[in-house]
């Protein structure tokens, strides 16, 4: 287990580094939004949680992953490239002329299920897939990663109450609870807490974890396939926006930006130091 977690941690560092370099080169991209959910996606894609096949991206039995917070696309694009859905060199072309992808998620990219950038929609589509899977008696799981700020969208709660009422226990919502929106902290804007109690009151099983602890994430998500509960599962992952790069962390104004010049070099050094110091 220790070696396994160590390997995932090393992968998290590798992915973060590549996301940072991709966004620095492009001069754009939501760097801090990616950093907060890196361990979540690493757990899903490298921790053996998600079933997928890069050789057959529309494999019917694959688990579906819906990145509802579509602004974290550089992270997913990096991982999909690394997993073999397309060549890693494509990342060099992120948000550039003749590139295959831009700042927000698009379904034309191999391995990507949906186009997403408008918040509050990917989660509902995931619920639709979960409902169809039940109707079709198929056993794959549907994971959706939501931003915490996305939970301001009323449509999220329409879907949340629908999913529990219809016992969509094949649906897993993971909330990247980094506490920040574009302009301010969520608890200053309109308080989201107690977020776990709110999801529970909507009929979901809720587990709250440290979203940067791969051990906690693996424990929370590891038995998603064998759960006996009839309720859908919500994992609230407490995270830090910009995790791994101190100068970008927890600062609202870094939302949606890529560091440039000396800021970029500083970010590189901080990320490297953070990993070397464990």
């Amino acid at each position: 287990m220790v070696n396994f977690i160590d390997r995932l941690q090393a992968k998290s560092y590798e992915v973060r580094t590549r996301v940072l370099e991709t966004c620095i080169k492009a001069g754009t991209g939501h760097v801090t939004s990616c950093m907060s959910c890196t361990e979540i996606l690493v757990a899903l894609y490298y921790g053996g949680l998600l079933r997928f096949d890069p050789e057959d991206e529309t494999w019917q039995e694959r688990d579906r992953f819906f990145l509802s917070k579509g602004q974290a696309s550089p992270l997913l694009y990096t991982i999909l490239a690394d997993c073999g859905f397309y060549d890693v060199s494509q990342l060099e072309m992120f948000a550039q002329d003749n590139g295959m992808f831009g700042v927000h998620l698009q379904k034309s990219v191999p391995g990507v299920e949906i186009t997403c950038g408008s918040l509050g929609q990917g989660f509902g589509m995931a619920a639709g897939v979960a409902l169809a899977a039940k109707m079709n008696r198929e056993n794959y799981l549907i994971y959706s990663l939501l931003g915490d700020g996305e939970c301001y969208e009323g449509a999220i709660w329409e879907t949340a109450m629908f999913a529990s009422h219809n016992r969509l226990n094949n649906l897993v919502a993971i909330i990247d609870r980094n506490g920040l929106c574009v302009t301010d902290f969520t608890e200053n804007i309109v308080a989201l807490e107690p977020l776990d109690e709110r999801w529970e009151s909507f009929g979901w099983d809720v587990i709250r974890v440290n979203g940067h602890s791969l051990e906690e994430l693996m424990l929370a998500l590891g038995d998603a396939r064998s759960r006996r509960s009839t309720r859908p599962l919500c994992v609230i992952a407490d995270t830090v926006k910009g995790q791994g790069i101190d100068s970008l962390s927890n600062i609202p104004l870094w939302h949606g930006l890529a560091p440039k010049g000396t800021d970029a070099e500083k970010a590189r050094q901080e990320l490297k130091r953070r990993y070397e110091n464990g």
Partner: protein
Amino acid sequence: MDNIALRDAFWNRIFEIAQTNTDIIVVSADMGAPALDQFRRYCPDQFVNVGIAEQNGLVLSAGMAMEGKHCFLYGIAPFVTFRCLEQIRVSCSLMDIPVTIVGVGVGFGYDESGPTHHLIEDIAIMRSMPNMTIHNVTDNVMAAAVAQESCGMKSANYVRLDRQVLPAVYEKDADFSTGFAVLREGEQGYIIGEGAMTHQALALAEALAERGISMGVIDMYRITCEEAAFVALVKDCDRLITIEEHFLAGGMGSYVLELLNDSGVMLPVKRLGLSHEKGYSYTYGGRHKIHEYYGIDMPTILAKAEDFMK
């Protein structure tokens, strides 16, 4: 077909299809219809009630469509379009996922309910999006045909159903492939209608004929229609009149003007519809009273048409 509401003619056909095609799903935003009662009874696994939650209904339908279902999202017309408009834009138009949006009560169908329930901007907005076909349903034969056609569509469509019973216009096996139909021939031009206003157009043509003015009638039942064929049909007319229960800005009349202009056809066209100056109406006492408020009642449009045809 029996003198039933358009929605019942529509749902009766969907019920027939759904009994052998389990991928047909009705997603209701807390809306019913007599014809849906039997659907719920005999196809309960294919009926999903999302409650008064159109946004969830739309994305849920799109998600199901990704797994091979064809969903009919059903609700009161203004809410099943505008409340979830951005979801329609992203899922149906941008991602090109086929969902059939079925709205009941277009125009002033909910006459006594007031302007929150009137829908007089939807053609303009829905036709501005790619991958979206609009069906202006004219009678029960067409309602059933559109139901059937919707099941096989590869992109999204929006079915505009009048809330009220409309008289029969079409024969049982009518061809609905072109998107428009000539319902009456005339020598001086055509009056073009949509949905309930096609019936008004027929009445107007009759009244004009009594005054020695010979106008035909075209039912613009689908947007977009087969545009080249439409332009070829009307390009040599003296005059065209469009009539719609919709704001003039961007509606069916605008569509006709665009087709003519972009084809280089310069033809006098009189658009009859709702002006922004009149705004929204809190008029009660029946649909005809609302028509009077906006000046699309029969005496007014007859006078306007006569003046235009001079």
